[in-house]
């Protein structure tokens, strides 16, 4: 256990040694801190409407001002961060699980199954994200579920393909033949011998997808296809702000700034992770 801790510590040191990595970590920590402690940090209930306080500028009581219903924007941004982060983490985790399983099956299974699965992945991938989102919303109605399903459908084919390619390459590796010769079954070979060797690069890529998911969630909520009011979401705040951008620009800023900050933070962090741990993926 202590070895794992020291490994983690070493990794963190290497990330912090890169200026871009340190900046990324700082932004991400800020964002996660805000999301986790939203209840304590929030100065008001995020959904409490107070018509008297509509369209107030930033002040001591309302750090980021209020919106057209008089809701405290600072609190809404914090709680919106919670939504954004949990949607991102949950849907990426689900995409990872599904993608890895499908990729292993495609890579290790018979040739015809592989061909069939590749066909399905390619078909899914050729679908524009927006179309997919619209189609799903007509099915489920605007909701968080729709957002999550869209993200999974968008990510799984890519993840599965990465795992499949590497599994194919490892299928004939000597250590896999050795396991077969000892009598190991397919599940054991996939779990103990192939998975640990293929998952690393995918985890790095997935971490770089977190900002993309946050943007998708914000985008769908902005269009009214995602989170339903009054639940706070950065996209929804941005939309509210757009309606009144001439008179009260701080609303749009309150919605847009956190999106930019988190996206930037996660992107920097992900790129540093990639450069530090998997230089092969580096684009020159």
């Amino acid at each position, binding site marked *: 256990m202590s070895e794992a801790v020291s490994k983690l510590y070493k990794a963190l040191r290497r990330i912090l040694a890169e200026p871009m990595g340190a900046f990324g970590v700082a932004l991400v920590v800020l964002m996660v801190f805000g999301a986790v402690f939203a209840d304590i940090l929030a100065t008001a209930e995020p959904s409490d409407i107070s018509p008297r306080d509509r369209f107030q500028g930033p002040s001591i009581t309302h750090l980021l001002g209020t919106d057209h219903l008089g809701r405290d924007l600072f609190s809404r941004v914090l709680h919106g961060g919670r939504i954004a982060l949990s949607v991102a983490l949950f849907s990426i985790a689900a995409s990872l699980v599904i993608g890895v399983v499908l990729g292993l099956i495609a890579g290790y299974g018979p040739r015809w199954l592989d061909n069939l699965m590749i066909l399905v992945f390619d078909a899914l991938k050729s679908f524009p994200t927006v179309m997919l989102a619209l189609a799903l919303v007509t099915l489920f109605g605007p909701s968080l579920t729709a957002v999550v399903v869209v993200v999974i459908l968008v990510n799984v084919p890519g993840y599965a393909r990465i795992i499949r390619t590497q599994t194919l390459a490892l299928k004939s*590796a*000597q*250590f896999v*033949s*050795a*396991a*077969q*010769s*000892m*009598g*190991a*079954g397919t599940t*054991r070979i996939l779990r*103990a*011998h192939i998975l*640990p*060797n293929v998952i690393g690069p995918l985890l790095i890529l997935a971490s770089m997808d977190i900002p993309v998911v946050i943007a998708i969630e914000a985008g769908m909520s902005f269009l009214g296809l995602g989170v339903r009011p009054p639940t706070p979401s950065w996209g929804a705040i941005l939309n509210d702000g757009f309606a009144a951008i001439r008179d009260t620009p701080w609303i749009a800023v309150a919605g847009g700034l956190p999106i930019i900050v988190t996206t930037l933070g996660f992107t920097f962090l992900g790129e540093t992770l990639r450069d530090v741990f998997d230089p092969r993926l580096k684009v020159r």
Partner: protein
Amino acid sequence: MILSINNVEVTFRVGPWFNRQPILGVAGVSFDVAPGETFALVGESGSGKTTLANAINGLQSISNGDVTFLGERIDTTSQRNMKPLRQQMAMMFQDPVGSLSPRMRVGDLVAEPFHIHKIKANIKEETERLLSLVGLSGDFANRYPHQLSGGQARRVGVARAIALNPKLIIADEPTAGLDVSVQGEVLNLLNDLRERMDLAMIIITHNLHVVHHVADRMAVMYLGRIVELGETESMFRAPAHPYTAALLSANPEPDPDKAKERISLPAEVPSLLARPSGCEFHTRCPWVQSRCKSDQPFANGEVRNIACHYPLSPGDKLPVKQSSI
């Protein structure tokens, strides 16, 4: 006999789907291995020795013939029935480090056979016992394969192979990629274990010097066929097949002044897609006669099997090229 293989053929299909061509990787090979015996399969790359090993191990399906291990036909048995037989037969692959799963620790690698066959044992104790048996201290259990030298990785492979007390070990190039000073260690270790555990071994190699020291009997393969099979010592003393003679003479020895009587062969090995007619060695044989081009010779003889129409006898003058250094 612990293992009998009889007329085994392995066919691969190559080419695009509309024009699949069958090629014979292993063409009608037969031999037996007795308990406690060390048998060597010798041949150059592409001679089918590794394919044959995989066929014996059941990793490669065979298109003809039969393989009998401990009285059971393993070429026709199901994967389920094969599993218990795999406890009795261990395979060591060519690459010492590459045959170890890179993200597993040595301790887990050595313990793997116990997990696969669900054998109840004090795994920690067993791993330590096995590691000390191959001359590695207990601290090695926590290392990863990339932290091992070639010789150490090979020892881990040996420890894993003997974990379940097998009757037969198939070792594919056990000394490949190892330094000279370490080759002896690994061969000595295998030999000690063979004596102690009454193991039978099949050693696959192109290193004739190794064969000379470890094998009781040897078979020389060419284009997927056994061209000569017999007692190691007598074959080294008096090779009968011209190919065996050429291989033996091509073995550079660490002695600068030793006069080298070499049989030089044309370097072009025929393709498996276009096997020569008659004796398949006739395209390179220095003693070729007209009959060799049309009639295929078949192995004959009780102690020594030779697939050649005109085998050499010990007194024969070799058509050699004297190289002077």
